[in-house]
């Protein structure tokens, strides 16, 4: 497609050239077309290379003949042919096996030849990139918005001063509002970096204040870039950023290293170097008169070296006081690479304004991260909160129910290839599977252990290891994929800093749905009423015709079923392995305990606290998630010391001291 440009495109490039030429004498238009200029550079065009292409381009630009842009486009796209017999260049159209040559200046068909009679010019990718950059000013006015956008991308990647004028001229004629805005932004960036007129430049820099985009920040950072400097006195005329004080801003060791690298002082001798030097001067089992076996202390080695120094066999080395003297005799400073102090001052101001906005956005991003982690913890823990909180049963196999849910999702995807449909099937199916497993476990095991809570913990742990190994035997040890549908795989992006993946949004929504659903079940339905009655006084509830067995069974099933759904959700963004449940179980327990047992709101509070806390700690030390988890658990241990009943505590006699 690109090799045969439309007429309109041609027209646009010509127009662009025209605009470029406005500043030039009108005489240029009266010249003899493009071919003669091309012939001036015949060899360079026919065999283009990185080293020669710049020369050709500047020549073409200087000549400024009509059709230059068209030629550059075709040259770049391998649409230019050279005829070996006379060296002339042509465009060509393919007609079957033959080629129809077209004159570059007139656009008329000249001849039909076989492809062996002409040679196609094939610039390599490096050359093509250079040509493309030269084309940018033309492309800025191209009628196709996609091409204009591509040109803007090119400028954003590698801008320079020459693009300021074409860019500012193209803004007036720009019809697309989005592109216009982008052009204006880009112009500001270019102006801030390269404009020769200081007032424009300062205004542009001011305009960048508070702009959090990566481009704007990198421009400002470039403008305020500093290089370290050292000398006997501060250089005059340099744009000094600041003077470093040895001892506070810079250590003496660092300072001396700078002196050494600036060739202002002899290098400090390392212990290894000294040892090697000493080893070269062993005479009769001694160095400088010190016997070898005594050379196992620094002091003895220093003595030996001094002896060699005194004898003149080794060069003197920088002693400590010499280091101090050398450092004291020099000034250490940082100097801006940008020479104009007004520019750097404006850029520093703009940067500090930006960092404020940046801080706000980063906080927002942190809050979103925390929120999504909290919803994961909430989903993982809420089932546990029901069984542990409402029934007082510790279910160590809760994590394995999460795993069962995730594997259910995986199995469904094996049979239903459409990810959206399989997800819709997997969610309720996971609930059904884990609900069944939960009810079975309650009937077979937990029912017999209601009076022995610590033993419930151990029995369910037994089930947990059995289930985990069973999953390993069935599905293998490697992670299984649970693929999210396309509409879940993107991300919501607010700007360069704040973005959140759709899966996490979905998990957040799922958590909200569960919160609402559970509150509804517990507060508004008959089942919820009976559950609460059994929780508070099983004996009394039983005497009022509520069957505690049935309620316990249903409650346990409900808690397990929710774990299954949580498993599908977690499986979508984490890996499905037989151990995935174990990774969540301790956190889930802590969520429940921290939040306060027996209360949905408590679990929400616990999940939020733990989620935000973990993200908060990670923010202080982003490279180390393990450390964040460690400190978070320590915090929780301390927290429970002060609020043993959790955030949302039941008060009074009901708490059952």
């Amino acid at each position: 497609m690109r090799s045969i440009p439309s007429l309109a495109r041609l027209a646009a490039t010509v127009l662009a050239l025209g605009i470029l030429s406005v500043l030039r004498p009108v005489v240029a238009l009266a010249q003899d077309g493009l071919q003669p200029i091309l012939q001036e550079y015949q060899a360079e065009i026919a065999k283009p290379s990185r080293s020669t292409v710049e020369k050709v381009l500047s020549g073409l630009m200087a000549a400024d003949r009509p059709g230059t842009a068209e030629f550059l486009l075709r040259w770049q796209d391998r649409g230019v042919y050279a005829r070996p017999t006379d060296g002339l260049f042509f465009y060509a159209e393919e007609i079957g096996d033959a080629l129809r040559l077209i004159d570059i200046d007139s656009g008329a068909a000249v001849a039909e030849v076989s492809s062996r009679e002409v040679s196609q010019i094939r610039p390599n990718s490096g050359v093509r990139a250079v040509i493309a950059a030269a084309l940018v000013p033309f492309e800025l006015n191209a009628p196709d918005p996609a091409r204009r956008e591509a040109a803007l991308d090119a400028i954003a990647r590698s801008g320079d001063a020459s693009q300021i004028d074409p860019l500012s001229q193209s803004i007036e004629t720009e019809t697309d509002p989005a592109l216009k805005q982008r052009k204006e932004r880009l112009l500001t960036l270019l102006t801030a970096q390269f404009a020769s007129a200081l007032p424009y430049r300062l205004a542009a820099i001011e305009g960048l204040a508070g702009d959090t985009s990566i481009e704007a920040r990198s421009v400002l950072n470039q403008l305020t870039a500093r290089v370290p400097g050292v000398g006997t006195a501060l250089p005059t005329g340099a744009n000094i950023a600041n003077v470093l004080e040895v001892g506070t801003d810079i250590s003496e060791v660092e300072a001396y290293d700078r002196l050494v690298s600036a060739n202002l002082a002899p290098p400090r001798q390392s212990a290894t170097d000294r040892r090697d030097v000493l080893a070269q001067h062993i005479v009769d089992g001694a160095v400088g008169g010190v016997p070898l076996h005594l050379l196992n202390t620094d002091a003895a080695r220093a003595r030996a070296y001094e002896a060699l120094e005194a004898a003149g066999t080794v060069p003197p080395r920088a002693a400590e006081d010499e280091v101090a003297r050398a450092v004291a005799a020099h000034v250490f400073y940082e100097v801006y690479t940008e020479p104009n102090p007004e520019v750097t001052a404006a850029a520093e101001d703009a940067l500090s304004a930006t960092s404020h906005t940046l801080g706000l956005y980063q906080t927002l991003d942190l809050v979103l991260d925390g929120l999504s982690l909290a919803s994961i913890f909430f989903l993982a823990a809420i089932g546990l909160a029901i069984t542990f909180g409402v029934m007082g049963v510790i279910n160590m196999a809760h994590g394995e129910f999460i795993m069962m849910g995730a594997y259910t999702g995986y199995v469904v995807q094996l049979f239903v290839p459409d990810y959206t449909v399989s997800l819709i099937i997997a969610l309720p199916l996971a609930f059904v599977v884990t609900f069944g497993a939960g009810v079975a476990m309650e009937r077979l095991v937990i029912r017999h252990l209601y009076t022995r809570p610590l033993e419930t913990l151990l029995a369910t742990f037994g089930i947990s290891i059995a289930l985990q190994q069973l999953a390993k035997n069935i599905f293998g040890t490697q992670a299984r994929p649970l693929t999210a549908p396309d509409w879940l795989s993107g991300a919501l992006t607010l700007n360069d800093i704040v973005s959140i993946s759709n899966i996490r949004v979905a998990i957040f929504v799922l958590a909200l749905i569960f919160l609402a659903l559970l509150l509804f079940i517990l507060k508004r339905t008959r089942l919820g009423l009976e559950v609460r009655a059994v929780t508070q006084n099983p004996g009394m509830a039983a005497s009022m015709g509520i069957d505690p067995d049935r309620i316990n069974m249903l409650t346990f099933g409900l808690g397990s079923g929710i774990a299954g759904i949580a498993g599908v959700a977690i499986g979508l963004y984490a890996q499905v392995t037989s151990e995935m449940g174990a990774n969540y179980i301790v956190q889930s327990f802590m969520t429940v305990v921290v939040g306060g047992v027996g209360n949905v709101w408590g679990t929400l509070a616990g999940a939020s606290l733990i989620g935000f806390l973990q993200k908060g700690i990670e923010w202080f030390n982003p490279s180390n998630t393990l450390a964040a988890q460690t400190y978070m658990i320590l915090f929780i241990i301390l927290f429970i010391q002060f609020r043993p009943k959790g955030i949302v505590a039941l008060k009074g006699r009901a708490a059952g001291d």
Partner: protein
Amino acid sequence: MTTLLEVSGVSVTFDGFRAINNLSIQVAEPELRAVIGPNGAGKTTFMDIVTGKTRPDEGRVIWGEKNVSLLGLSESQIARAGIGRKFQKPTVFEAQTVRENLAMALKARRGPFDVLLYRRSKTATARIAELAEEIGLSDALARRAGELSHGQKQWLEIGMLLAQDPRLLLVDEPAAGMTPAEREHTTDILKRAAETRAVVVIEHDMEFIRRLGCKVTVLHEGSVLAEGSLDHVTQNQQVIDVYLGR
């Protein structure tokens, strides 16, 4: 007769329910005192406050000659200060023998290292035998407490209370589940104990209280309704109203 325990202006609230309302009671040493009142009058909560199980919202609980406030002390410190308690429901250590139960309660140093290095002495063995005799469990010393009947558990708990040798005994419904003969014996034990120390008894059974023949405090809705001899309080119109219902 000096004041041993002074409870003054104590209030406590559970979830908005005022279980104890500006309660003031003084107990002297030696003294035998019965506390009566309808269900929910705050009798057991009063004991909870004195023994440190429940912290009051306001008020003072002062103990002994040195006027120590009990509010800052833990349950075990209060127990070591000389307050012993028998619970409404007998709570003995069912997995252990009667002898072990009594030995644990026997007055001795309570620190872990003291207990670790504790060695049975002749006097201690004799004291346990004596107590077992008194509570009628001499033959059951080697039996597990869990195997005892309800009444025997009550006796054992009274025995443990006596073994602590406290200055103040708080006894919650000591005669529940006992035969008339056993009740009589219990009355004797309590009366004898009250000769040298303070004893506070919570009881519903008026006959039992009449046999104790002591000063009676009537609690109602968390505060003292009447105080005096049993005859005096039973003639009090308010007490009659509370017990018979208006």
